[in-house]
Every structure is written in structure tokens, then in C-alpha cells.
């Protein structure tokens, strides 16, 4: 039973990772690509780790998997934030069809 749940979680995680990579390739600019990579890859990797924890049962392996999942949950959005801010600071433009860029407007003032 635990094995089945674990494999379902791992399969879902791999699917989300794949979709995240497809988004990474298809989206037009840095910021949209970050959206795809942070959201899908965070959830995909966490599902993978939770799946591993479910299969191995309570013990050292699942403790490690859960700690890694927590680290990813905290560090992945922080890293995305740092990359987005760095990209904007070094002058990477938004996609040409973007609606609005309040950040650039405010920085000029």
C-alpha cells in the first residue's frame, strides 16, 4: 500500500518536473521562465522526496528526505527572488508584449 502511494507521488513529481522544463523552454523571457522553473520544479522535487519518505517508512531515510524537502521549500523561492531582482538590476528587459513594469517606472523616479 505504502509502495503504491509512494510510486504515485514519485510519478506525479517527475511529471511536474517535466512540465516545468517544457515551460522553461517555451516561455519568452527570464521572469516567465523563473515562474515555470520555481513553481513546477519545487513541487515536483518535493513530491519526489515525499514519495521516497512514504516508501521507506519512518526512519533515517525519510527524516533526510523530509529535511531536504523543507530546505527546498524555503530556498527555491528565495533563489528565484534573488535571480529576478538581479536580472532586473542588470537591465534585462521584460518580454515585448508585457503589460506593465511598475518596478522600472518607480526606479526612474
Amino acid at each position, binding site marked *: 500500500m505504502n509502495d503504491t502511494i509512494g510510486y504515485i507521488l514519485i510519478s506525479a513529481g517527475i511529471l*511536474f518536473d517535466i*512540465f*516545468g522544463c*517544457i*515551460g522553461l523552454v*517555451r*516561455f519568452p*523571457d527570464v*521572469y*516567465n521562465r*523563473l*515562474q*515555470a522553473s*520555481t*513553481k*513546477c520544479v*519545487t*513541487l515536483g522535487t518535493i513530491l519526489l522526496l515525499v514519495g521516497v519518505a512514504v516508501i521507506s517508512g519512518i526512519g*533515517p531515510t525519510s*527524516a*533526510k528526505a523530509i*529535511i531536504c524537502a523543507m530546505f527546498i*521549500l*524555503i530556498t*527555491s*523561492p*528565495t533563489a*528565484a*527572488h534573488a535571480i*529576478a*531582482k538581479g536580472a*532586473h538590476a542588470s537591465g534585462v528587459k*521584460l*518580454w515585448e*508584449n*508585457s*503589460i*506593465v*513594469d*511598475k*518596478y*522600472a517606472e*518607480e526606479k526612474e523616479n
Partner: protein
Amino acid sequence: MRRLIYFVLAFIVWTLLTWPFVDGGIDVQVVIAGLIASVIVAVLFHEILPKEHHIFISPVRVFWFLVYLPVFFYYVLKANLDVVYRALHPKMPIKPGIVKIKTNLKTESAITALANSITLTPGTLTVDLTDDGFLYIHWINVKSTDIEQATELIARRFEWFLKKIFE
């Protein structure tokens, strides 16, 4: 005091990661290495512990945190399906932009949690935040450029919980 808290936390993480309980005994070498590593971490990095760390012991906050987790995961799942839809759709229905929102949260840890929650949930990514409580959000599907309305759509659902947890 902060160093002591940090030392204990670092050592707990070390214990869980290395698991020194082999064959009913304890692997002394691993424990000694962990103690040394924890001391170094505590001395060097104690300053990054949030200033209001004492509040995390309160059971009411822990309860609200446990309530927040499933809500958060629901939004994370929704965000993922949304991004997957936009990534796989042949016409790629996106209209991105950077909007500005205002938050009423005050403490550092609450704003950090809000920024991270926003990044992981539907179509939004925190780009920068200012000292007076404004956040710049990259939105994959801009519905409103007005500060009030954007705040309503992006941040309101988390603020209520985070206020209970962190403030």
C-alpha cells in the same frame, strides 16, 4: 542565548541527517563531528536568527501554522496546474507584467513568509520589496495594475493566516 538556540537547532538537523544510532549504540565520532560543526555554525551565523524568535514556541501559532500548511499546498497545486496549462497551450496565453502591492505585515519573518508564499502560488513571483511594506510582483497574467486591487487578488488570502502565525 541566540547562539545556544542556534547550536541546538544545528545539532538536531545534524543528528537527523547523519543518524548516528547504529546497531543500538551511538557512533561517537559522528556526534563529536556534529558538535564541532554546530558550534562553528552557531558562532558564525547566529545573527540570521529572526529577532522575534521567541514567538514560535506559542502553541496557538503552531496550530495556525498547521492549518496554514494544507491551504498553502492547495494554492501551490493550483499554481502548478495553472503554469502547466500556460506552458502546454499552443498559443501560450500569458500577459506578463510587474505590479506593485502593499502589505500590512510588519515583522521580518512574516514578510519573508509572505514573499515566499507569493512566489510559490498562482502566476506570481516576488521581484523586490521595499522597507515601507511594498512588494513588486511579476505576474504572469496581469488582471489589474491598481495597487489596491492587485493586493486583494494576490496577497489577501495569505496575510490573514500569516498575521495569526507571525504577529
